[in-house]
């Protein structure tokens, strides 16, 4: 329940770079990752890891943990890709695709060659795109992403909702955490049955508190002169780095060229 990703993004070493640069870099990386071949995708993943661990100084075990989470998702989904089934009568049609198989009743289950290829492709693509996504998560606090959205002319109602939701997420999350700890202190989640009951109480409390927060925020924003829009101002004090800009641009160029060569 602790969103430590958010904490890390406020303390990374690339914090002073303009958020536009970081976001742009990640989006370009993401685009290349989507359209390129597996070797280039692996290269992107490695390069992004250098940015995240080397330049932004995100502890390797944290970054590694996040990567293994993504790989874990991939692992849980490969059975669906690898294992296929057809009626025994149609077995001939998949002869080329089947690596090995077994017959269950009138059904034939087999390991699919195409499934292996697909799983491999997904693996490379996942590593590449996830590392680009993580680069944004680890180096750019949400508040700065929001400022970029405002500057590039994102509809006001969207940036307003994002602003409020970001605040409320942490508010409700800390409420949920407090309730959960308090329940634990009274042995709330002792048995499976009590676990379910306790969780349902927690959700109900959280819901009631959410509605109460609504009434209170209506009052407190009105007291501060709410005029129909949630607008805020923030100062700009970012420093672009020539060295990083150069490496990012050259690197992307090399990747695009590499994509044609492989």
């Amino acid at each position, binding site marked *: 329940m602790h969103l430590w990703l*958010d*904490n890390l993004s*406020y303390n990374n070493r690339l914090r002073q770079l303009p958020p536009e640069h970081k976001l742009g870099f990640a989006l370009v990386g993401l685009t290349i990752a989507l359209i390129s071949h597996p070797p280039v995708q692996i290269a992107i993943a490695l390069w992004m890891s250098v940015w995240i661990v080397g330049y932004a100084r995100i502890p390797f075990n944290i970054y590694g943990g996040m990567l293994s989470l993504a790989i874990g998702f991939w692992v849980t989904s490969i059975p669906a890709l690898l294992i296929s089934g057809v009626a025994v009568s149609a077995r001939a049609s998949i002869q080329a695709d089947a690596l090995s198989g077994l017959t269950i009743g009138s059904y034939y289950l087999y390991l699919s060659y195409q499934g292996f290829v697909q799983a491999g492709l997904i693996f490379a693509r996942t590593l590449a795109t996830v590392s680009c996504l993580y680069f944004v998560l680890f180096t750019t*606090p*949400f*508040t700065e992403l*929001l400022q970029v959205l405002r500057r590039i002319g994102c509809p006001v109602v969207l940036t307003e909702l994002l*602003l*409020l939701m*970001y*605040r409320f997420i*942490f*508010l409700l999350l*800390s409420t949920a955490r407090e309730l959960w700890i308090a329940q634990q202190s009274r042995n709330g989640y002792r048995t499976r049955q009590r676990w379910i009951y306790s969780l349902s109480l927690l959700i109900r409390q959280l819901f009631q508190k959410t509605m109460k*927060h609504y009434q*209170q*925020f209506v*009052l*407190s*924003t*009105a*007291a*501060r*002169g*709410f*005029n129909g*829009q*949630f*607008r*805020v*101002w*923030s*100062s700009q004090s970012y420093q672009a780095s020539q060295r990083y800009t150069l490496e990012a641009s050259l690197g992307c160029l090399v990747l695009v060229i590499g994509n044609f060569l492989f």
Partner: protein
Amino acid sequence: MYVINQVTNAENNMSQWLVEFQDVYYTYPGTNQPAIANLTLRIPQGKRCAVIGQNGCGKTTLFLLANGLYKPQQGGICYGGKRINYNRNSLIELRQQVGLVFQNPEQQLIASTVEEDISYGLCNLGLSGKAISKRVPQVLDQFELTSFAKKPVHQLSLGQKKLVSLAGVMVLQPSLLLLDEPTAYLDPLHTRQLAQTLATIHTEGTTILMATHDLEWVDRWADWVFVLNRGKLLLEGTPKDVFTQGDLLNKVKLSIPLRFQLSSLLDEVNQSTTIEQLKTKILQILD
């Protein structure tokens, strides 16, 4: 623009009372007992005022009425000698003049970073980016929050959140500041810092009205005290006036601050008092 407005208001307004409740009545829908019952109360200009009373005596409702968030069901409220007019524009003007800091900062802070939250009230007034970018750093500096400017609100401690919620109201330079239990849950260090900040705000000309349970604080700090009981004004006056009414306070289960009792005792000391008598009396008070 708003700064000038405020100054002229202050100059024009020769009235002694900044806000005046005239026979105000307010009941929450679905309840029988009125939260505010025929309350007549005047907040003196430029003073440090305190509201004391039991939980549920109507303090919070009083604040919401003074800020124009609630409309009296009977009676009326004057600000600067003029009856409040509950139309949009007058309300916006009123809320800029009457700043309200809620008890729980969690329910007041809405933006993601400290500087964004402090700028919210200014943005509501439709000020230019230039004016805002000048005013916000001033306030950050005044409240010693500059190093937190870019910090997200959810990473702050409670004391810091309270400070930010106060800064977000003071950035509008209100004439009257309403504070609901500002010292609750604060440690002695932060309480002292708050006292200093409020002293500065007061000397700069802001009238302050604070609801609190800390009677020692009231004795030391307030110029004027209102005692509320069940939505009615039971008593008002200087701390001295109020705290000498021991019987009345007792009835509403309020005690007399230690410091006040001792000071009164010392005032009574004369040539004929022996040191043993004084000692015994002090021990009685301390018990």
